[in-house]
């Protein structure tokens, strides 16, 4: 009896936090998504049932933002994963300065994305270093972030730069968990560097690859700070992403009912992607065995 009470005391911080800051908002936002709700004009609040969802599906900006977000995910996640994997394999060799690489490559990923975005806004600016470099290579200076064709690509390139070090560390942990005997056996069987990579390393790091791809996808779906600081969705909505659109609708136009519906739709998309990835990558492992 006494023990039950103390268990409850130990659990209470989580119970309160879960109820107030998680379960309640999750349910409340579902309710909101069925309402027309503007916090500045509470008198206009009324139930609209599924209209917000119907409106979203007919909203060209919703589709545009989803398309941009998918482009962002499809462009950055594979590149980041490949760079991180090969870098981890390289650092895992018997070479000098391994600890230097391990911490050095990691540093960009702990710096605030706001800071990263400001640095790259300067690098991409008309008088910035990227243009100086382009001039040296004989091409015309551009306004990288003000052209619809280049803006999103530039942000994607920056995102790869800012995050690959993080995933390199994860891959390194995965590589170091591979028992040395496995490599020894591969060597005795006469398999070379690429053979070992193909038939030993890659199958062995599949679980951590799954983890990396899933968390990177979830994270990339939420791209927001970069857009907020660098382009605010422009030029011509070419960098409008889902979370930025949701933020814009909720906190600039105060259409909080509609924005809640957008949030739920985004949540469903992210969930589907994670489930598909888990299934696909797990099947790959079963097929490889």
């Amino acid at each position, binding site marked *: 009896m006494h023990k039950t009470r103390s268990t409850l005391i*130990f*659990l209470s911080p989580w119970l309160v936090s879960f109820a107030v800051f998680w379960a309640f908002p999750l349910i409340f936002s579902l309710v909101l998504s069925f309402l027309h709700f503007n916090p500045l004009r509470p008198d206009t609040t009324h139930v609209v049932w599924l209209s917000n969802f119907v409106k979203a599906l007919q909203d060209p900006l919703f589709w545009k933002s989803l398309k941009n977000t998918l482009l962002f995910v499809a462009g950055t996640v594979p590149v980041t994963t490949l760079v991180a994997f090969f870098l981890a394999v390289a650092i895992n060799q018997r070479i000098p300065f391994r600890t230097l690489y391990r911490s050095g490559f990691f*540093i960009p990923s*702990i710096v605030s994305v706001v800071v990263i975005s400001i640095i790259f806004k300067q690098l991409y600016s008309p008088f910035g270093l990227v243009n100086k470099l382009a001039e040296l290579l004989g091409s015309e200076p551009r306004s990288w972030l003000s052209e619809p064709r280049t803006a999103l690509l530039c942000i994607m390139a920056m995102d790869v730069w800012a995050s690959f070090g993080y995933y390199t560390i994860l891959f390194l942990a*995965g590589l170091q*968990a591979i028992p040395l005997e496995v490599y020894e056996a591969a060597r005795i069987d006469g398999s070379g560097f690429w053979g070992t990579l193909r038939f030993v390393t890659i199958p062995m790091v599949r679980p951590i690859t799954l983890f990396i791809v899933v968390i990177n996808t979830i994270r990339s779906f939420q791209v927001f700070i970069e857009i907020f600081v660098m382009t605010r969705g422009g030029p011509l909505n070419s960098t409008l992403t889902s979370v930025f659109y949701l933020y814009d609708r909720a906190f600039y136009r105060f259409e909080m009912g509609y924005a809640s519906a957008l*949030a739920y739709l985004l949540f469903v998309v992210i969930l589907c992607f994670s489930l598909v990835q888990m299934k696909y990558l797990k099947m790959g492992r079963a097929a490889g065995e």
Partner: protein
Amino acid sequence: MRRATGKRAKQARVNTAVLSVLLLLLLASTLFPLYWMVATSLRGEASVMKTAVDLWPRSPSLRNYVDVLKSGPFARYFFNSIVVSAAVVLGNLLFASMVGYAIARRQFRGKRLVIVGIVSMLMVPRQIMMIPLYLLISKLHMMNTYFALTLPFLVDAFNVFLISQYVLSLPVELEEAARVDGASDMNIFFKIVLPLSRPALAVVAINTFLVNWNSFLYPLILTNTERMRTLPVGLALYSQGEHSVDWGHLTAGSTLCAVPIILVFLLFQRHIIEGITAGAVK
């Protein structure tokens, strides 16, 4: 035979050298943007445009830092970031370990439900909840307070997971012996479990600090006065208005935001990497 081995060893040395050169070049270009930030922040105002290609400012000065700290609001931002991060770290050290301990050591009804709840907090992106959380905080009249910036983040699900995994790995005999000697539950928790969990607590503290120092979306929507902005939010908003191409001041503010986190990383990298890989390799 010997010649073949010698040749292979030589080949290996060449490979190592080539790989090292490539990696060092890649490392230099990875760190270059951060170097560029510091270099730009040390330029005098006038030379920012003119000598934009100088790799190191000709007459480095701290003027930009004095400007953003004195006339700009950055001193206040910095203070807010420290207060909020410290409070969230302390909260997680106490609360996440209480919860983690209960999950590791106690049997109770609904335990599986609690675990499902914690896992679901890890899976669902928090952005989904920005609107209800904003409405909740403003209904409670907590906008622009330290409460708004700390209360929702005091019990992080990942920290709970980390602590409970660690406590599970501790021998239970010490706690049992203390109980036989008549120690109370609180005494056992504070005098035995917490001290033994120090390595896990270090990981929790450092990772919570990293995440919270860089936190952006929630501090953005839960504050709307200059006085309550944290460093990343203040910096982002500073870069939007009249200062949008004021690179000297912007990079000085950026450096102020980046340096504490890089220092913490360099001091505690072992714990940080442990914390990151803990969730992955399990």
